């Protein structure tokens, strides 16, 4: 199995963000000096309220927005240094399925494979496996307008997982998926992670992140307010008890950040 971008410039870190300040307006930035790293084979959970800056952070990582200051490195390179390496090292699944209406599921997979320069036979073998995992074999010749929202999301996931990138970014992956698809996705994520893909997963379903993430990052109003393993984050929130959940810790962290009663 080949992981795109692996073994090229850079060390073990698939993603390195240093003092990133950015957003839509320089006068009112959304992100304020955010730093984070994500190593190969790691799953990093990105947590925050609506409007905390998660999507903006993801757009900066994808290179769809230009930082006001700071830098974003993927597989060791910034977008300006090596656009080809940067782009070919990332696969992205947005929260809302974003498909070409004129391409069938199979053609989406073919185009993605061509765009990432995958070898044809290997790509089809992997595509068939993913189609079986997500129970999409019968829908391979369908156009998106005949698919349900959940099926469209599966197509997005299949495209991203087909590539086996150095960095996989997934925004709210569980929305709209049926229980078997969630199970298939979790299995597929474990598999690509074992092969060295780093995963940045943004989700509001904290129980899933608590189980699967190696580390967590909590954003609030564009600032990083906690970072570490789920256990460390709970400790930082003052919720270290055995019965405390990540939801409790998150609530405490947000209240503390807003000057509330966190830690009481």
């Amino acid at each position: 199995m080949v992981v795109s971008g692996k073994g090229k410039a850079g060390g073990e870190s698939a993603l390195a963000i240093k003092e990133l300040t950015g957003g839509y307006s320089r006068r009112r930035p959304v992100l304020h000096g955010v730093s984070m790293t994500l190593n190969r084979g790691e799953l990093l959970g990105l947590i925050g309220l609506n409007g905390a800056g998660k999507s903006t952070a993801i757009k900066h990582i994808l290179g769809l927005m230009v930082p006001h200051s700071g830098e974003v490195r993927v597989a060791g390179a910034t977008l300006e240094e090596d656009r080809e390496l940067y782009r070919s090292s990332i696969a992205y699944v947005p929260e809302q399925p974003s498909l070409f209406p004129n391409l069938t599921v199979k053609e989406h997979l073919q185009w993605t494979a061509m765009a990432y320069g995958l070898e044809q036979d290997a790509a089809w073998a992997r595509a068939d496996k993913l189609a079986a995992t997500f129970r999409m074999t019968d829908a391979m010749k369908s156009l998106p307008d005949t698919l349900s929202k959940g099926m469209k999301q599966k197509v997005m996931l299949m495209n991203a997982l087909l590539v086996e990138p150095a960095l996989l970014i997934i925004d709210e992956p569980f929305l709209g998926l049926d229980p078997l698809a969630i199970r298939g996705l979790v299995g597929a994520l474990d598999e690509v992670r074992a092969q060295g893909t780093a995963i940045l997963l943004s989700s509001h379903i904290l129980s899933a992140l608590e189980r699967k993430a190696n580390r967590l990052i909590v954003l609030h109003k564009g600032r990083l307010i906690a970072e570490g393993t789920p256990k460390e984050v709970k400790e930082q929130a003052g919720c270290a008890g055995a019965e405390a959940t990540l939801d409790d810790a998150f609530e405490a962290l947000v209240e503390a950040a807003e000057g509330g009663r966190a830690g009481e």
Partner: protein
Amino acid sequence: MSRNAHGEQGDFLRSLRRERAAGFRQEIVPYFRYVFQSGFGLFASAIFFAALIWYTDLIKAVPEDWPSKWVGAVVLSLAALRAPLRTYLRPADPIFLLAMENRVLGQYIGGALRRAIVAGVLRTLVVFALYAPIYIRSPQTAELADAHPPVILGVLFALLAGYNVYGGWRERRAAARSWRIGLKAVRVLLTVSAVAALLLKPLAAAILFAAVCMALLALLWRLPAQHALPWERLIEEEASSRRKWMGFLSWFVDVPSETAKPAYRRWIAWVGNLIPWSKRWAWHYLYVKVFLRGDTFGAFWRWIIVTCIVVAVSGSALADAIAFGVSLVVCGLQLSELKRVRFVETADTLPLPPQGKLAAAASVARWSGIAAVAVIGAVGPATAGLGAALGGSGAGEALRLDYWLAAIAFGLLWCGWWMPRKIARFKDEDDL
């Protein structure tokens, strides 16, 4: 609900439809200025006056071999069969108007249907008014015309046209696609038969035959499971009508893009699979698939077919060359749509150079244009003389290679070089 409230809802629905229709007109009318500035007005006027001169000459002395029987049957059938229905319904309407579906059916759709019937009747009467002098004077039909008073025929064709528009509505109501297609096919068959009978057979028997045909249709309409109001079908059809208008206007000026519902078109979509599996060709693959399944290709291939038929039956080498040239100008304009293809946001995150997009669009336009030149350029010379055999006025001109070579050279220059070059250099501010 009180009678008063029902009345208010009815007034609201009637005014809603009127406002939407007016809104649509206000949206498109300003663009016509650009259409006429582009020379289209001049072109259309030239076609109109040429057709007028040809028609005047024809009715002065209809040639003995002029096929007035089948021309009449075809043009009157086409006029009577058309059953468009502009409802101006929008995707959100089922959410907000579903609760008053019965009144939507009566006040809103009923109004739209009445207008469509009036338009259908007028259209058919205009076509009949143009055809009637030919029918009366043509040696092939003059005798028939004596036994078929034009006023009675006009009334009968008007009834047939109105009935067809209503038939179109009944077809839309059928829940299953197969029933809709089947009912339409039967309507086409029975209408063409009825029109031919009314023109060419003894009038009393023909009227009886037409009445039986229409009764049979009415019977068939009762068979399928049907919606009281086919919301999704009407909304889809309305969106398609808007797209067609915007698609036409976009040949001349930038208009807001409308997302088209793609067609599978398996008969042609496989062409994209011939593109080499390589990163270098990824944009090409995407453009080919987007083009072949989109609205633009739907208009493109139909236009080519129409041109092929025209050059095959025209019977005049000069007319063939002119039809070929005009057709390729339109094909080129259709292909220029490729420069405006909009992609989903995730396409920008893939490891493909963005500058490759327009190069791929230009390449797809070039090869599509060359294919159009090849198809029409092959049909034209291959069918030289066929027009005369079908009764054309060109007296069976021999193949004029000089005309065809000039026309093909023009086609290759326009579709194979000029238009792709403009697409490759396209900037948003360009008006092409």
